[in-house]
């Protein structure tokens, strides 16, 4: 959830979380002798059944809201109010999606979000891996200072930055422009940290080889080290995509032009806008929320398998 983990520190956790998903637990300990207390097989089976029941019940609690969301988006408004619990609509209706795509600015919001997210992801991955490599492997004066700056920045909670970022963006003349929306998101302290840690684990000998062969720093970075960084890069790509697609506060303060509205701001305005004369329109709002979630869900499902493996040895030690 972006609220809680939007500071740079959160990225560290997410990276760890993503890494955890690819690991399997260690094998159970081999007992050298029978334990003092004998555990009857009957108790073991009840225990296991209980475990599964618990897990499935909890999974149901976690999944059911989304299923209801999908089914409600296909209901008519009166039915949504009358039959909130049912998972199958009595009359299937795509009125909500119709209204969303034809009579509102939703396609524009989607396009804006896509454009901004792609730019931010590509840009951030590039800048962050550059900086991470420099901090890990290049020796230059003031390296410690830069590192300290990044660590310090990670400690600043984003709420403090809400007002002043608006002022700075305005002063620089970037307000109400794509530049103002994209540029500030291109650097993220937590991601630099992740890349730096990864590059530190890459054996130095690979680079030494390349230097002996006469390659410059950028060449080494681009052609030698970066290809080896695929697992970390994928992590950063996922984090950047998720972070910028789900970002709200920054888009509130960096632009107010309706032509620049992103999905988060647009859907939030749908949710807030129920005032005089617009009614509650749940199917519409839920449909908007679903479509907004789909890209992030796809990225999540596709990439969750291909994360952080231990670095494939490019050097025979």
């Amino acid at each position, binding site marked *: 959830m972006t609220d809680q983990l939007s500071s740079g520190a959160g990225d560290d956790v997410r990276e760890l979380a993503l890494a955890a998903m690819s690991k399997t637990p260690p094998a159970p300990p081999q007992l050298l002798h029978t334990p003092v207390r004998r555990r009857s097989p009957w108790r073991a089976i009840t225990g296991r059944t209980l475990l599964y029941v618990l897990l499935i019940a909890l999974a149901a609690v976690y999944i059911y809201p989304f299923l209801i969301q999908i089914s409600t988006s296909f209901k008519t408004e009166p039915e949504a109010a009358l039959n909130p619990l049912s998972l199958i609509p009595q009359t299937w209706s795509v009125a909500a999606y119709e209204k969303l795509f034809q009579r509102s600015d939703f396609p524009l919001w989607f396009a804006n979000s896509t454009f901004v997210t792609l730019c931010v992801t590509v840009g951030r991955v590039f800048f962050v891996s550059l900086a991470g490599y420099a901090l890990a492997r290049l020796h230059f004066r003031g390296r410690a200072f830069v590192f300290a700056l990044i660590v310090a920045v990670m400690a600043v909670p984003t709420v403090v930055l809400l007002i002043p970022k608006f002022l700075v963006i305005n002063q620089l003349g970037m307000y109400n422009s794509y530049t103002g929306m994209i540029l500030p998101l*291109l650097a993220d302290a937590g991601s630099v940290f992740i890349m730096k840690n990864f590059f530190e684990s890459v054996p130095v000998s690979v680079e030494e080889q390349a230097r002996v062969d006469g390659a410059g720093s950028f060449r080494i970075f681009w052609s030698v080290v970066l290809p080896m960084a695929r697992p970390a890069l994928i992590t950063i790509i996922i984090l950047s995509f998720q972070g910028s697609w*789900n970002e709200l506060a920054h888009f509130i303060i960096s632009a107010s032009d309706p032509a620049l509205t992103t999905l988060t701001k647009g859907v939030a305005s749908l*949710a807030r806008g129920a005032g005089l004369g617009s009614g509650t329109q749940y199917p519409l709002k839920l449909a908007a929320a679903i479509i907004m979630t789909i890209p992030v869900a796809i990225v999540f499902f596709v990439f*969750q398998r291909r994360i952080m493996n231990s670095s494939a040895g490019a050097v025979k030690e």
Partner: protein
Amino acid sequence: MSALAAPPAGATAPKPSPSRRRPGSGIRRGEGAAGWLFTLPVILILAVFLLVPVLMALWVSFSDWNGRGSPLSSGVHFVGLQNYAATTTGGGLAERNFGLALRNNAWYVVFVVPLQTALSLFLAVLVSRQVLRGRGFFRTAYYFPSVTSSVAITVLWLFLFSASGVVNAIIAWFGGNGPNWFSDPRGLWAVVAGWFGMTTPPAWLTQGDFLGVSPWEWIQGPSIAMSAFILMAVFTTSGTFMLVFMAAIQNIDPALAEAGMIDGANGWQRFWRITLPQLRPALFTVLTLGLIGCWQVFDAIYTGTQGDPGKTTLTPAYLSYQASFNDNQWGIGAAIAFILFVIIIVFTLFQRWVLRDRPVSQRRIRAYQPKAARQNGATR
């Protein structure tokens, strides 16, 4: 935080290269320039969009800028602690709003942090069990809500917890009568007190105030509306923290569990005495991030209730935004942001202190010493 992202085993520490002595020559020439060039984009962006804004906000919080023109222009004056005073002691609406926001967020933290930590630990332990089939499915199911944006989840929650929504329908199925969640400003403890017959607060609790909020209002607990947000927070973040705990559990040396089993400890004892202490760094991370995150609730309030009903879902982060962007009181908004900053730092440091590695107490040491030594009165 960074302690957990350790390099995988097998990486050797690089030997100091000859360039350390002569950075300007040899095969590593140009490395200094390259280093600066590589980090320049990140430095520039972080400095301009993170560092400078903090300083600018500091200035605005000490000034009387009214929203027109540049805050650094000549027409803006330094007013010292006036904005901070208005927010904390002014006696007017600014103080009361801040007091209410603090109260709401404090109760939110009190409920969310323990609940989400406990739930994510519970899920992690369950899903990490050796004999689990479909582990991937359960992991995905619990983690999925964390992937969605807070806007999407808030929209879903507004629907689920509406007056005639899903949650109330389920409660009705069990014979109860659910409240009008997002429109109910009654505090949780006030509702409970009502069940025991205490419908109006005793007079001594309504006298006096701290930050413009009476003691009764302070201890009322989160409102029903805020409780819906609390449930939402636990729902969305338990997945992420579950993965943190899972990573930590998998890193526990299985030999420890084996030793425990040999000594005859049952599952519960093994968990409390062996597993949990090993999870201390992960617990620390989860608690720290939970605290930091909980004090910054903004997106959900902006999308959902905007502080209503009755200002019981107002949080300092949203109040800071509202004071500046809605009410044109930029100085007050900036002051609130900085006070919040200090609060977060204080909480984080306090939590760090509470969970520090303390030397084992004498009493505990004695419990592990052989009987003979104890009987000889080795009471040091």
